[in-house]
């Protein structure tokens, strides 16, 4: 049963993320990305990291991609207007970065196999909160500060059009 769910979810993630760049229709791309992220969330649930899985759905699938979809839909760029992609160096760069990331993952896989199995508390909201608010409290607070600054900046930029009233 576990294996079956794993293959369905992994298939969703892989096929979804491939379709993101196969489709020329941007709305289809966003929908494929949603599929991929949902697949990843299911994998998190399977790994007993239910908290992270839920956050994955709430933040990425439920909030950020809705904004993506909004932007894509309101711009409504047709695929024939985009034309062929002329930036050759991007393809080369993407391949290099992809290869490096793949190699990195392979080494990680070896390291993980020798690691201890996770405890029953692993990935729960409580254990994550304990780590966030003790060992990583500075990084956590700095990140939230950064997000706050970005939010205020966005509000400011959006309001500039209103004649500085």
């Amino acid at each position, binding site marked *: *049963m576990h294996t079956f769910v794993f293959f369905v979810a992994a298939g969703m993630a892989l096929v979804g993320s491939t379709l993101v760049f196969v489709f020329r229709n941007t*709305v*289809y791309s966003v*929908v494929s990305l*949603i599929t991929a992220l*949902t697949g990843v*969330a299911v994998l998190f649930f399977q790994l007993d990291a*239910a*908290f992270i899985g*839920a*956050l994955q*759905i*709430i933040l990425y*699938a*439920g*909030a950020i991609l*809705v904004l993506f*979809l*909004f932007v894509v*839909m309101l711009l409504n760029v047709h695929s024939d207007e985009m034309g062929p992609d002329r930036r050759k160096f991007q393809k080369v760069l993407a391949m290099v970065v992809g290869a490096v990331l793949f190699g990195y993952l392979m080494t990680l896989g070896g390291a993980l196999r020798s690691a201890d199995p996770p405890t029953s508390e692993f990935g*729960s*909201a409580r254990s994550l909160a304990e780590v966030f608010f003790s060992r990583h409290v500075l990084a956590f607070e700095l990140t939230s500060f950064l997000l706050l600054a970005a939010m205020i900046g966005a509000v400011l930029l959006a309001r500039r059009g209103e004649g500085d009233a």
Partner: protein
Amino acid sequence: MDLIAFALVLGKIVVSLVVLLTLCAYTTLLERKLVARFQTRIGPNRAGPKGLLQPLADLVKLIFKEDLVPSGANRLLFTMAPLMAFIPAFLAVAVIPWSGSFTLWGYQLDGVISDLNIGLLFILGVSSLGVYSLVLAGWASNSKYSLLGGLRSSAQMISYEVGLGLSLVGVLLLSGSLSLTEIVAQQATVADWFIWKQPLGFLLYLICGVAETNRAPFDLAECENELVAGYHTEYSSIKFAMFYVAEYANMVTISAVATTLFLGGWNGPWLPPLAWFFIKVLAFLFVYIWLRATLPRLRYDQLMKFGWLVLLPAGLFNVMATAAISAWSGGN
């Protein structure tokens, strides 16, 4: 897990889905009957005794209607959108506890399909996926009313999701758990119900819950005098039925979460747990219908102002106050 235990879990899933579908169908009848009473009419009374077979007649009628796809519509997304409304609406029941654990044929069973330790976040996440159906339906229909309706309702749902999440934080602070089973277990007697400790939280949840399901007086999505029917203007037949059922399933979910978090879940004297659970859910659904029959619709800018300038600060205040009081009294 042996085969019988697996079959029992599967049975629980099937029974839950069937019960939810039936509840949705009969909520439509309840709504029509009650609104009729509120307006001193009689309501549907022809199909079956006292109109009790009306949902069945509606279903048959909807299935046999012509399935139209407007010209210029995006066929694939137009078909996918109702499914994307339907599936998340039904996923949420997986974590709602409708009874304590009980014994069936010698097997100890929990009164919930899956007791996730972050059940509440699961519900919030899954229900936030419902937005896509509105956006995609509005966009794929290639119709201005659908597009405007879809945009409106998705903006509304995103805005009120914030308030909905905040209104629940108070209960989480007091219970110290995200597991719905655990939260219900802490409300064993009526005095322990979280509604007494979180009156503001409950009120905010009620308002946001109504807005989140796009129901009157927040049904701007289908504001018929401006938008015909909003995002599902172009839908007919079984696809329309799916949107319709999803709306009622969402109402049932919101009611079930309210029951679980604020009204003590399946706890109650004398009657069996299942009965208490359904009594409370139905009472909440009654409030939904009552509101619809009583209040006029808000204007769109009023809705947005209310969400961001009233509900959000009130929700933040509730979180702060709850945290301060529970820290003061030395709670967890």
